[in-house]
C-alpha cells in the first residue's frame, strides 16, 4: 500500500508541477532525434553516441552534422542523470566542428512499467551554450509509453525555452513519436515522427513548422550495445529534406 501511495503521490505531484511549469514558461529546437522511454534502471552506466547528418537543398544546411557524446547513470530506481557534450558542424563549405553545448539531462520514472495503461516519466535538461552567441536552454518533456503484445509506442511532448544573455523570448513546443514492432530483441523495425511546432504564443503555419517522418530500426547488439538508426524525410517546407540519425549505446551495471 505504501508503494502504491508513494507512486500515486509522485505522479500527481509531478503532473501538477509540469502543468504549472508550463503555465509560467514563456525556446529552441530539438537537437537530438531521440525518442525517450520513461524507464530508469538503478545502477546502470550508459555511454551514448548520438549523431545526425542532414541532406538539404540549402547549401548551408546540406551536410550539417551533429554529434553528442553522453555518459549517464541510474542514480536510483526512478532517477537517471546524464551529462553530454554536443559538437556541431554546419553545412557551409570550409566549416569545422564546434563545441555547441554542455548538457545535463535527467529522466524521472513516474510509474512502474505496466502498472497503468500508460507508463509515464519526466525529462529535464539544462544546456549551457558553448559556441559564440549561443544561449543556454531549458527543456522539459513528458515521456509516455505503451507496450502491447507486439508493438511499443513512445511519445515525448517537449517544451523548450532559451535563457541567458543571447536568448530569444518565447517557449517552443514539439512532439516526438516512435512506434516499433517487437520482431526480435536484435531487430525492431519502426517509424518515428519529430515535430517542432514553434512558439506556443505564436502559431506558425504548417510550412513554417518542422515535421520529419521516417523509418528507424532499433535493437540490441552483443556485449551490452544497442543501436537506433534511421532516416527522416522532411514533411514540411521548413524541415530539412532528409536527415540520417544514429544512436549507439553501451550499457553496463556499475
Amino acid at each position, binding site marked *: 500500500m505504501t508503494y502504491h501511495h508513494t*507512486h500515486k503521490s509522485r505522479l*500527481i505531484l509531478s*503532473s501538477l508541477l509540469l502543468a504549472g511549469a508550463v503555465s509560467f514558461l514563456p525556446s529552441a529546437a530539438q537537437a537530438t532525434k531521440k525518442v525517450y522511454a520513461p524507464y530508469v534502471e538503478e545502477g546502470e552506466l550508459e555511454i551514448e553516441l548520438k549523431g545526425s547528418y542532414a541532406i538539404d537543398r540549402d547549401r548551408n544546411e546540406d551536410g550539417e552534422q551533429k554529434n553528442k557524446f553522453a555518459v549517464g547513470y541510474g542514480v536510483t530506481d526512478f532517477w537517471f542523470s546524464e551529462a553530454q557534450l554536443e559538437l556541431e558542424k554546419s553545412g557551409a563549405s570550409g566549416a569545422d566542428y564546434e563545441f555547441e553545448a554542455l548538457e545535463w539531462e535527467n529522466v524521472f520514472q513516474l510509474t512502474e512499467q*505496466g502498472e497503468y495503461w500508460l507508463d509515464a516519466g519526466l525529462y529535464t535538461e539544462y544546456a549551457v551554450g558553448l559556441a559564440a552567441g549561443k544561449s543556454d536552454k531549458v527543456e522539459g518533456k513528458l515521456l509516455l509509453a505503451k507496450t502491447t503484445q507486439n508493438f511499443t509506442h513512445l511519445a515525448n511532448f517537449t517544451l523548450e525555452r532559451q535563457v541567458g544573455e543571447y536568448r530569444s523570448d518565447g517557449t517552443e513546443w514539439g512532439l516526438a513519436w516512435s512506434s516499433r514492432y517487437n520482431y526480435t530483441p536484435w531487430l525492431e523495425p519502426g517509424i518515428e515522427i519529430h515535430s517542432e511546432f514553434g512558439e506556443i*504564443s505564436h502559431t506558425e503555419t504548417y510550412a513554417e513548422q518542422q515535421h520529419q517522418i521516417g523509418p528507424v530500426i532499433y535493437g540490441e547488439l552483443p556485449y551490452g550495445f544497442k543501436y537506433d538508426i534511421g532516416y527522416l524525410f522532411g514533411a514540411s517546407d521548413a524541415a530539412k529534406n532528409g536527415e540520417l540519425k544514429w544512436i549507439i549505446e553501451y550499457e553496463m551495471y556499475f
Partner: protein
Amino acid sequence: MKRSFFVLGVTMSLFFTQASLAGDELKIFTLTIKDHKFTPDTLEVPANEKMQLIVKNEDPTPEEFESHELKREKIIKGNSEAKIFVGPLEPGEYPFFGEFNEATAQGKLIAK
C-alpha cells in the same frame, strides 16, 4: 493554451489515480533468486489478466530479470526485491532469465 496544459495535467492525475485504485486487486506471484537460480523456475499464471511479480533476490549480488517475451527488464540489487507488472498475457509460455547469470538463472511463466 495555459489552461489547456493545466487541464491535461489534472486529467492525467485523475487517470492515474483511478488506474491505481483498480490496480489494488492485482494477483501477486513471488519468484525467488537464490544461488543464481529462480524458484520456482516454472510459474503458472492466469491468462488475460494483469498481475504483479515480486522477485526476491536472496543472493548478495545483483541480478537483472529479463524477458523478451514479457518485454521487461529490471535490475534487482543483492538482498532486495522488485515489483514487476506483467500482462494481460495471451495463453502460452513466456521465458525469462537473469541476465547477469544467464547460464543458471532461467525460468518461464505459463499463462493458462
